[in-house]
């Protein structure tokens, strides 16, 4: 479910407002844990206790000072008995306050730290705490999160089951569980996590999660009418209705009802969450009538929306930065890493892309896209053995991804000096894309190929590049494809740099690469120039 296709345009062709799985504190400050009701009637504490205990303080009762300070704390007041807060009580309070957030895992601020060791430490600390006192739902859910980040899926499942058993009424825990099961491709369990919430039919957060998961899995959408009615209910908190409106808008959009979809997206932008903003940004790329207002961009932690917007603008460094932040926010997710690790236009970007892919591969070890992207980044960085290992590890995982891997073998071969295998690899990849009638992918693969040829000083590159530029609108079906635009620029830069002397390939490595290529056994039938190749589409 996380991702099936490598081509970013294809990866982003679908998006649903599936629940986020933020850390408990992030979710708290994002308002995800607020009551669904628009107004929360706080309990009024009786004032008489303040007066009664105050009188006892005036009579010189020392312990009454402690009670008065505690009562005043509850009333949100500072201690005002005419003397200082009892020293021992102040120390106790200070000591208690040090526990704030101290028991939940900490994660490194950047992706390049030793985060695997850190996660193992988190697991050990959480386990130790749970061994002493097992009935702690947040500890279990955070343990599940750590296990997921480490790719220990079964352990994560078990830990999350405990969390749901202990705090099944918590919307945060239920939505986190649904997100985790969705990550593990277990749609029935994800739906069960949401639908078994005691307040399922009366909680817009649960309903939006149910609609998004059902829609993503192609299951019947049972709660659309209820969701639409809920949108008109003024008793609900507007921020909680935002995701529901976005989920319904996406369903309408997919059904081709664009007018209703636009209205619902506009509704979702009244009090948007960062998830809603990302959804609207995604929708705006498909429907030009949907406009994201400027003020919406001030929503904190809207990393995905920023990444999507930066990609459209071709600001690749910003894409990488946003994807890194998004991955830190949801360290188990493949999507931010796939999007970010595709950005390999400069050497610095390659380093960051490699880091992103490596980070996400721990939790998504079977992701062919991530392996392929890392192999590309490694090849550009000169780590050809590492790149080939990634390709080998991806073999046979996912047939659809094979053409990309063929192109990556071509890249590795070119970089190792084996131009013959390089050409074979790229040619096979482009042929597959052409046969699949996937023009954007064929174009992009050709551009990667051209970059390698430009590096070698091949004179035909300029002609082929001109052909692509001339037919760009047709090849991309009039859609904005920022990767292709930026790749054309990259080829031009390479052309301007001139050719490099290529050392002959290392025999053992070349043999290994050819062996990998043969294992794909591609039926390479097409011939002719690269330009005419594209003309077939």
């Amino acid at each position, binding site marked *: 479910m996380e991702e099936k296709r490598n081509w970013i345009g294809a990866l982003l062709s679908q998006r649903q407002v599936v629940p986020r799985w933020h850390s408990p504190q992030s979710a708290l400050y994002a308002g995800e844990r607020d009551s669904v009701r628009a107004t929360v009637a706080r309990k009024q504490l009786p004032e008489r206790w303040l007066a009664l205990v105050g009188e006892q303080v005036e*009579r010189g009762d020392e312990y009454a000072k402690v009670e008065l300070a505690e009562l005043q704390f509850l009333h949100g007041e500072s201690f005002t008995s005419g003397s200082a807060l009892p020293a021992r009580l102040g120390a106790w309070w200070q000591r208690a306050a040090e526990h*704030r957030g101290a028991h939940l895992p900490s994660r490194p601020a950047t992706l390049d730290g030793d985060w695997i060791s850190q996660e193992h430490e988190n697991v050990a600390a959480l386990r130790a705490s749970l061994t002493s006192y097992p009935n702690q739902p947040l500890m279990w859910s955070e343990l599940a999160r750590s296990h997921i980040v480490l790719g220990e899926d079964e352990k994560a499942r078990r830990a999350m089951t405990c969390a749901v058993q202990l705090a099944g009424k918590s919307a945060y825990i239920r939505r986190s569980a649904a997100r985790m099961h969705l990550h593990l491709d277990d749609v029935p369990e994800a739906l069960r996590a949401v639908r078994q919430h005691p307040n399922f039919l009366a909680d817009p957060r649960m309903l939006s999660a149910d609609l998004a998961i059902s829609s993503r899995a192609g299951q019947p959408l049972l709660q659309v009418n209820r969701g639409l009615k809920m949108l008109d209910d003024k008793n609900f908190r507007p921020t909680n209705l935002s995701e529901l409106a976005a989920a319904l808008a996406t369903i309408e959009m997919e059904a081709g009802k664009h007018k209703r979809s636009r209205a619902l997206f506009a509704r979702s932008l009244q009090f948007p969450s960062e998830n809603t903003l990302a959804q609207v940004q995604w929708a705006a790329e498909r429907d030009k009538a949907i406009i994201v207002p400027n003020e919406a961009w001030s929503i904190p932690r809207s990393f995905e929306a920023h990444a999507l917007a930066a990609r459209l603008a071709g600001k690749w460094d910003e894409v990488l930065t946003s994807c890194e932040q998004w991955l830190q926010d949801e360290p188990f997710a493949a999507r931010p890493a796939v999007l970010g690790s595709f950005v390999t236009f400069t050497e610095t970007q390659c380093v960051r892309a490699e880091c992103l892919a490596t980070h996400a591969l721990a939790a998504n070890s079977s992701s062919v896209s991530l392996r392929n992207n890392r192999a590309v980044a490694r090849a550009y960085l000169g780590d050809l053995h590492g790149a080939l290992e990634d390709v080998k590890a991806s073999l046979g995982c996912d047939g659809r991804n094979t053409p990309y891997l063929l192109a990556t073998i071509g890249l590795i071969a070119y970089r190792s000096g084996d131009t013959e295998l390089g050409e074979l690899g790229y040619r096979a990849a482009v042929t597959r894309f052409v046969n699949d009638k996937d023009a954007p992918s064929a174009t992009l693969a050709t551009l990667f190929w051209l970059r390698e040829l430009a590096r070698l000083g091949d004179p035909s590159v300029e002609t082929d590049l001109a052909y692509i530029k001339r037919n760009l609108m047709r090849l991309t079906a009039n859609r904005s494809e920022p990767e292709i635009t930026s790749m054309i620029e990259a080829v031009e830069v390479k052309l301007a740099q001139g050719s490099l002397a290529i050392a002959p390939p290392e025999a053992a490595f070349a043999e290994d690469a050819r062996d990998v290529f043969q294992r794909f056994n591609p039926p390479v039938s097409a011939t002719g120039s690269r330009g005419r190749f594209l003309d077939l589409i």
Partner: protein
Amino acid sequence: MSTPPLGTTPTSALSTGGTPDGPAERLEGVALNEKWLVLERLVRDPGDTGQSRSSCYGAVSVDGGRSAFVKAFDFRLDDRSGDTDRLERNVREFNHERKILEYCNELSRVTRIYDSGVVVIDGEAVHFIVCEFAPRSFRRLQPPGDEAVQAHERLYALRKIASALIQLHSAGVAHQDVKPSNAVCFDDQVIKITDLGSSSCLHLPSPPHDEDPVVGQPNYAPYELLYPNSGTSTWQRRRFGCDAFLLGNLIFTSFVGASMSILVLHALDEKLRPDECTCTYDEVLPDLVTAHFAIVPEFLRATVPAVVVDDLVRLVLALTHPDPSKRGLSPDGRHLDLHRCVGTLETLAFRAKMDHGRKAKLDRSAA
């Protein structure tokens, strides 16, 4: 009702906060029902609005045989202000306290009611209850957090308070305001529980405070009472569960010297505290559980002798679980099972006493 800390210093010149003394505050020297001579005033409950609500006095029987505690109620201001709702509520609260004391009069671990009635002072009616008088409050005898008090002494006293709660529960009464000043000590080592003003009884009509969100002194109250929408389904679980929490909090407070619930709230993110929170209790609960299981063991380990601390931590954690449905000690989760709590406290007290004796012996031999 208010909390009369018995055995406190008599103060005939209590501050009245600018409100003139009402008739309930002028009972000194008056003979009630011709049986009880009122002595000095002990405490005054200013009530919700700062106006006089009730005053407490020491008293002695006219025949000189018995000391007593008098609680006098003044409904004059409510009557004069024409606030009939308030008047009705206060009268019902008074009647409830009187009736519940009479209902519990046979319980050996609850302070008894001797008499009740009405007396006219300067043309104004003052209603009163005459109860058993205790020379010291538990809070004065064993100040919370005072390290000079031996652990076994505290544990024995707490065991007696737990027994008193069992008596109340078996009579169908939930106290709902168990705190250090609501246990009183008699000369013969007997400890009784007092002040049933906040209590509810299965067998008596529901008092007005049953509809209040918070019953009892809020700084000791269970977490769920401080948050909105946290109601639990059954009367027993809600009321008796509150008592179980208060007992656990009393054990914690006795050793640590500060209320457990307030310390746990300090360990919560500010956005989750009752005065800031926009979440339901179900959403706060996971964080509360984490904070609760961190704070209780740490603070008890800092103040309780090592020989009993592990068992005491387990006991307090079980009694004060933030989820009322998980509170208590019974494995089937149906009962609060305070009997087991009494047994544990007894065992721990004995163990602490043995340990104390052993250490004292070692000290002596070392000296």
